[in-house]
């Protein structure tokens, strides 16, 4: 185990993520809705709206389509939480990425189990979207290994230079697929935040009540993790790098909102094609740069 942070710090981070993570995610979600609304010229909902939504969802009657959908969604939530906790504890990035993929697989399985035409089509599209962003996610630990020599997240903290200096194109490719992970245009094929698409609400069409509430909470945990990976590119051993990381995270957040408001939803072929082309080209160039320098 390479030198990293002391184990008690890891535990503190894990507890912080488990307890505060959903609140931070909820606030990010709420602020995102407000910023999107302001960009469209509307007033927008209050910032605590996601909390009100989840509270309302929990108060609804149990009307799940079958018995197993709750189990699948709860498993997906569990995997996402473990992935995030491992990440913030400074653990192995490969395991984190695999756990995130496993969580999406369980969401897809829960959508298939609902056996309705819309959620089936949404599940198929989610499969395609996962195929679109998996390559870059799997190449991120490779980039980290090439620069820091370790697959552990906490190895970045002991570096002098942030990861972004050595892997800028990886960072840009990751930003390119972030809308797909955050379920925003242009890559919100499987489900989006509004039920305004041809698949009604895609994956989550047949989820209601506390099932949908668990999906929302999983979204909050995942949002913190996704922006955490953005920050991972920027932290170093210097104390001010954390502040820089937060600033860059905020800039990426605003950029995501702008991209959501300036792109239409594209079809799955375009999603796959553009994501793979960007991934291959950028990552190949970057890796060549890393190998030969």
């Amino acid at each position, binding site marked *: 185990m390479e030198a990293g942070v002391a184990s008690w710090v890891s535990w503190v981070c894990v507890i912080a993520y488990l307890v505060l993570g959903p609140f931070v995610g909820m606030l990010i979600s709420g602020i995102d809705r407000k910023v999107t609304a302001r960009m469209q010229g509307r007033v927008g909902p209050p910032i605590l709206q996601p909390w009100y939504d989840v509270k309302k969802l929990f108060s609804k009657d149990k009307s799940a389509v079958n018995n197993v959908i709750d189990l699948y969604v709860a498993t997906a939530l569990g995997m996402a939480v473990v992935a995030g906790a491992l990440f913030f504890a400074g653990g192995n990035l490969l395991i984190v990425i695999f756990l995130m993929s496993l969580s999406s697989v369980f969401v897809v399985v829960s959508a298939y189990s609902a056996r309705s035409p819309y959620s089936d089509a949404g599940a198929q599209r989610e499969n395609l979207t996962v195929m679109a962003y998996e390559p870059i996610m799997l190449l991120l630990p490779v980039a980290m290994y090439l620069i820091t020599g370790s697959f552990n997240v906490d190895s970045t903290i002991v570096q002098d230079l942030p990861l972004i200096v050595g892997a800028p194109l990886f960072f840009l490719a990751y930003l390119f697929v972030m809308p797909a992970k955050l379920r925003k245009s*242009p890559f*919100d094929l499987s489900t989006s935040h509004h039920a305004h698409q*041809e698949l009604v609400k895609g994956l989550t069409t047949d989820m209601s009540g506390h099932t949908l509430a668990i999906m929302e909470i999983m979204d909050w945990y995942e949002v913190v993790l996704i922006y955490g990976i953005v920050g991972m590119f920027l932290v170093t051993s210097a104390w001010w790098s954390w502040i820089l990381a937060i600033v860059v995270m905020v800039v990426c957040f605003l950029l995501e909102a702008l991209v959501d408001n*300036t*792109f239409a939803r594209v*079809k799955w072929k375009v999603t796959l094609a553009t994501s793979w082309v960007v991934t291959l080209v950028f990552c190949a160039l970057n890796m060549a740069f890393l190998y030969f320098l």
Partner: protein
Amino acid sequence: MSNKTVIPFGPQHPVLPEPIHLDLVLEDEKVVQAVPQLGFIHRGLEKIVEKRDYLHFVYVAERICGICSFGHSLGYSQAVEGLMGVEVPERAEYLRDIWQELSRIHSHLLWLGLLADGFGYENLFQQAWRLREIVLNIFEKTTGGRVILSVCNIGGVNRDIDNDELRAICDDLDKLLDGYKPITETFLDDASVHSRLDGVGYLSKEEAEDLSLVGPFGRASGLDNDIRSIGMGAYGKLAAFEPQLSNIGDGYARTEVRINEVVQSVQIIKELVSKIPDGPVYNKPKGNPPEGRFLTRVEQPRGEAVYYVKGNGSKFLERFRVRTPTSQNLAGLLKILQGCDYADVPLNILTIDPCISCTER
């Protein structure tokens, strides 16, 4: 062995403005067949004509549809005026055509917003509808209603717009055109919008002629079917009128035709305002509709609508029939749905500009 699934589309669906049910037979994300079912919004409005005084029926006629409401009251009034031989004052004809063109602008802006929503671009949808508010405010200032105007009547119009107000309307429309530029640029030039609209629902000119398509749906394939070219009413006083045509024939072309029609409508309104004569606006009809029949046509935002009335001497008309443009274009819809991608189904349905409540009355 391909597996066929049947996906029910509608009647309740976020992208549909009005309820229509389509059973889509899919083979792995490609639509093989579409089986329509209508009748969810049939209210029997044509039967009501036997129970309502012919003067009162105009208020029923304008409630056939919310989007093309003024066009229906105009068509009905024109038909009964033709049957009874009532002469409409000239100023009333100009005012009617100004309201009809405003109705066309608001309908096309509504359609543009729905199309943007259909391919997941909420921001564009909001901006298009925000421009539509300008037109709805004009309606409210001049007639009192935003959607149902209650202003066209047999023998003329119920209210006058004085010339100062008409000039203010032209200024408002200039502001609308200013705000319209970013929206048209986005629809016509944006890469992600292109990826959704290009090649979607292609119909060649021969196919369009075979199916006798009306409205911008047919004009995008090159058919010259605009009734305003005939020159009824104040349209005959325009210096020149050329319908907007396109040769491309797919979803992109239909968007382009409707975008250009908005600009053309603003120009028509300005020309009518500059030429409008003074005079009365209402000529009260006397007596009851005589025995006889009359047929007239109006260019609704969605295409040509035919109005037929039959009188029998009493104050109740015997028959009133509307042939709405969407009922003519449904055959075209079924044709473009065959063989399209599942992701394109809502776009195909939206590009014909469906107004199901007109179709089913």
